């Protein structure tokens, strides 16, 4: 998919801490969500962060690729 990027999104306390709603990144080969986090945020993987790829909850080890929407967020507090 020529020109497709990974769309990274941040929510809640994480969005506030990073001071932005998201990033656009190029995957360039195989990449885990955890590795994408390091690339996008420049920090090591925090314990309490959750990941969704294309709006489905996945493990941090899951692969991501260009064209994906990858969201990072703190544990949910609904209900």
């Amino acid at each position, binding site marked *: 998919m020529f020109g497709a990027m990974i769309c990274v999104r941040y*929510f*809640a306390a994480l969005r506030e801490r990073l001071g932005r709603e998201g990033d656009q990144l190029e995957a360039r080969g195989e990449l885990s969500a955890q590795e994408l986090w390091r690339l996008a945020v420049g920090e090591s993987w925090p314990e309490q962060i959750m990941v*969704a790829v294309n709006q489905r909850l996945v493990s941090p080890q899951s692969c991501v690729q260009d064209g994906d929407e990858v*969201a990072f*967020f*703190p544990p949910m507090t*609904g*209900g």
Partner: protein
Amino acid sequence: MIHTGLRPGRYAACPEVAAFEAALEPGSWGACALFTGAMRGAHAVERMELEHYPGMTERQLQELAEEAVQRYDIQHVLLLHRVGTVLPGETIVLVASWSAHRAAAFQACRYMLETLKTSVTFWKKEYTPAGARWVPPPRSGVAA
């Protein structure tokens, strides 16, 4: 029948349930278990902001309701959740299930509520005169 939804404005639990039940076949169910969670007035919290993940949150609610119908012996689900600004006393969440069997109705209602609290993309931020804070993840059994 399954109905799930996000509500940006306040809603009253009872009319929602009455309208939903009016659309069900009369006499088709014997048991309804319903839970409503409201924002408490304690701790000097003046308001709450409920953030969600547009698109994902709606789909998670719908899938949760469908999963409950598969997993338990229930026929109907009503599942509503507030987003945006919530004031003390206002309803945040409404979970209801209709069944021929009271045990299934209770179990499904409880299951959906517990899942909502930890697995659906909602985040609460509380505002007090002293400042704001993100609500920590719930401990089991304690109403947030």
